[in-house]
């Protein structure tokens, strides 16, 4: 393990570690982003379907019916 701490190697070890951590964070964020988009889209679709045109009823009074 000490070879990883040698002056010439340590900087590559540090860079590789930082890159691996970043790739992990990036993939995690991408997954969360996709999941969030899915939930938001499904919610929007559900909201739109429940907001569909409500049934209408026309009340006609007796007077206007006679006319």
């Amino acid at each position: 393990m000490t070879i990883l701490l040698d002056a010439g190697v340590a900087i590559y070890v540090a860079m590789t570690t930082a890159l691996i951590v970043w790739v992990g964070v990036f993939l995690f964020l991408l997954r969360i982003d996709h999941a969030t988009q899915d939930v938001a889209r499904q919610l929007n679709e559900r909201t739109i379907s429940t907001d569909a045109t409500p049934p209408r009823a026309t009340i006609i009074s007796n007077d206007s019916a006679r006319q």
Partner: protein
Amino acid sequence: MALRKGDGVKIFLGLWIAAVIYSMFLVVPQYVGLGDAGRIIIVHVPVAWVTTAAFCLSAIYSIIYLWKRTPNSDAAAVAAAEVGMLYCIFATVTGSIFAEVVWGTFWNWDPRETSILVLLLIYAAYFALRSSVDDSERRRRLAAVYNIFAAVTMPFLLFVAPRIADSTLHPNCAFLQGSKCEGVSLSLTGAKIAQLGDVVIELKSLTKSDALTQATIEVRMPGMKNIATLVPTLDGAGKPADRPEFPGQQFRMVLLEADPTAGTVRVNMQAPGTNLLSNSRTLWVFLASNLGFLGLAYWLYHIRRTILQVQLTLTPGEMTI
């Protein structure tokens, strides 16, 4: 994981930050006096700047909330404050690692360290306030007002307070053109003793030969540990020549001005890293890092804001954070 429309920008951001990481280690040259520890500045400073931007955005949405009373604005304010807090913690941690390597301690109550800690506490109180009020409308209103006050203190804590101090280990002159690091003045006939950062300094003598002006200054580190005599010099052209190191530290004393006839000098601390950005490769990687971390902050903010808005739609008034 299948890619989707719109992922192109995110993948570009991912590659951009990966390139910044690569450049930080293998493109940016070592800076004299800092060694490889200096590379952390490529992350530390941009993250601190983006913290400011995130807290400002949060305050703007709080103002919008108070004006229009739309819960979505409050959700945006929370999301931005959370990103700002995350970045602020990251800046503090990277700064502490740097301090341990370069200055010999993780935390030394430097003015800028102290002010960022206060800022962290102020925003921690913002989240504590939000979680302590049950009524959602009241919570949003109180939090919005508090957030605006918190944002007002931020420029003072980040930009003014550290510069009011006589000196700081942070090289203010490194990044901002025209910023002042004036140091402190000492006089053989007047004020011999002064405080430079957390170090007490005392002017003992001032001599001038043909090519060199020498000031003999006794320094006492905090707790009266490491009393030493340093002899910074000015060359014949009036420029700093010898810059001795403070005992047990990696920062130096620099003689900025000296007037042997009047017996006065002006001295300062010089942290390693001053004028770091004069190297063009360092400058470009630093700018790229700023853009990368700004983009990442926006992405984080966007995700968090969407989650909060979904929560708001599902359970109006029940957004607990």
